[in-house]
């Protein structure tokens, strides 16, 4: 009876979460950038651009039985839609599918556990912040939510600190989990259209990443190919919007009631 319970709970934990499959060398003490699809697809567009510009190698994937039963073909090869890319000091996570809301918590837990095992020095999550007057903004502003106060100096003036408010979705959970696990974490949220792919916001986010990590990723291609990127990402944005509705993403507009 006792054994039965133990094996049952073990099976449940294996199918409830994510398995991180490493297919290449994973750098230790690296900076990890997360580019999951959300508002304006800012993180996904910016992270994909980092992968291409710096020529990062694919080093792993995230698998879960609870993800939609799909693969993505690249160069005729079947791949997981959630993959890891890296060089000697940087790991980038991207997802080419909207992560179902029910999987966000297991994702945050498993990812932070894996990051801790690899001695990750910084978790940098890239996302969008929906603004109603996006049409009026020529250069989107970047805001940062940080896991600990001392990270303020690490921002190098690239982003304004978010002091109050809600963060709904994977990045809020990641930030919280990183705080618990003592992994320094920054969520960079860039002003963007809510449900239009926003390459200009992605370029602004990347400019901030360049400053924080002292990288030299050229953002001009993102701006030059803006129309093509917007059209190519239309369907992805549509799917992402469906998940954002389920997680009540607009909650981020609400004012937190408490102070002090």
């Amino acid at each position: 009876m006792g054994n039965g319970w133990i094996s049952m709970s073990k099976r449940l934990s294996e199918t409830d979460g994510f398995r991180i499959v490493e297919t290449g060398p994973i750098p230790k003490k690296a900076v990890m950038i997360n580019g999951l699809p959300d508002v304006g697809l800012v993180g996904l567009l910016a992270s994909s651009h980092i992968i291409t510009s710096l020529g990062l190698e694919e080093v792993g994937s995230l698998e879960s039985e609870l993800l939609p039963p799909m693969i993505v073909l690249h160069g005729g090869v079947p791949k997981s839609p959630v993959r890891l890319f890296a060089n000697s000091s940087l790991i980038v996570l991207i997802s080419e599918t909207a992560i179902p809301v029910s999987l966000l918590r297991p994702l945050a837990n498993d990812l932070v556990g894996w990051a801790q095992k690899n001695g990750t020095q910084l978790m940098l999550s890239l996302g969008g912040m929906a603004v109603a007057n996006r049409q009026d903004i020529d250069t989107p502003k970047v805001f940062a939510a940080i896991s600990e106060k001392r990270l303020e100096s690490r921002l190098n003036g690239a982003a304004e600190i978010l002091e109050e408010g809600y963060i709904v979705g994977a990045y809020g959970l990641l930030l919280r989990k990183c705080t618990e696990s003592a992994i320094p974490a920054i969520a960079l949220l860039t002003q963007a259209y809510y449900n239009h792919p926003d390459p200009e916001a992605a370029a602004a986010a990347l400019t901030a990443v360049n400053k924080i990590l002292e990288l030299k990723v050229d953002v001009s291609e993102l701006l030059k190919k803006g129309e093509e990127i917007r059209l190519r990402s239309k369907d992805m944005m549509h799917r992402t919007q469906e998940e954002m509705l389920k997680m009540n993403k607009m909650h981020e507009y609400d004012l937190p009631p408490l102070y002090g």
Partner: protein
Amino acid sequence: MPFSQGTGWNVTAACIEPLYNLMVGAAEIVLTIDLPYVDQRQVKLACPADDVLEIHAETTRKITFEDLGIKHRHGEFTCYHARIRTPVPVDETNIKTRFKRGVLEVHVARLK
């Protein structure tokens, strides 16, 4: 169930259904529509009923699936089309639009 070419790609009509966002305010509704590859002179907006807005826009160039890196599907697109039902009645005589960076913003007063 009929075979479809995915979300919003109508090969028969050579039309793409654009992404749009609709916000309902106290006095007006605000609609934004993402229209890459469109010149603002090609945008046509109509209000065929007091709870429907219709947008049609020719693209500045022919767009094919191949242009977007898809080789196993065939189809070319020359316009965007969307028929959007508004959650509240709107005043067709009180519409303001602006077009910036390929995004059309439409402000329509609510019917009193």
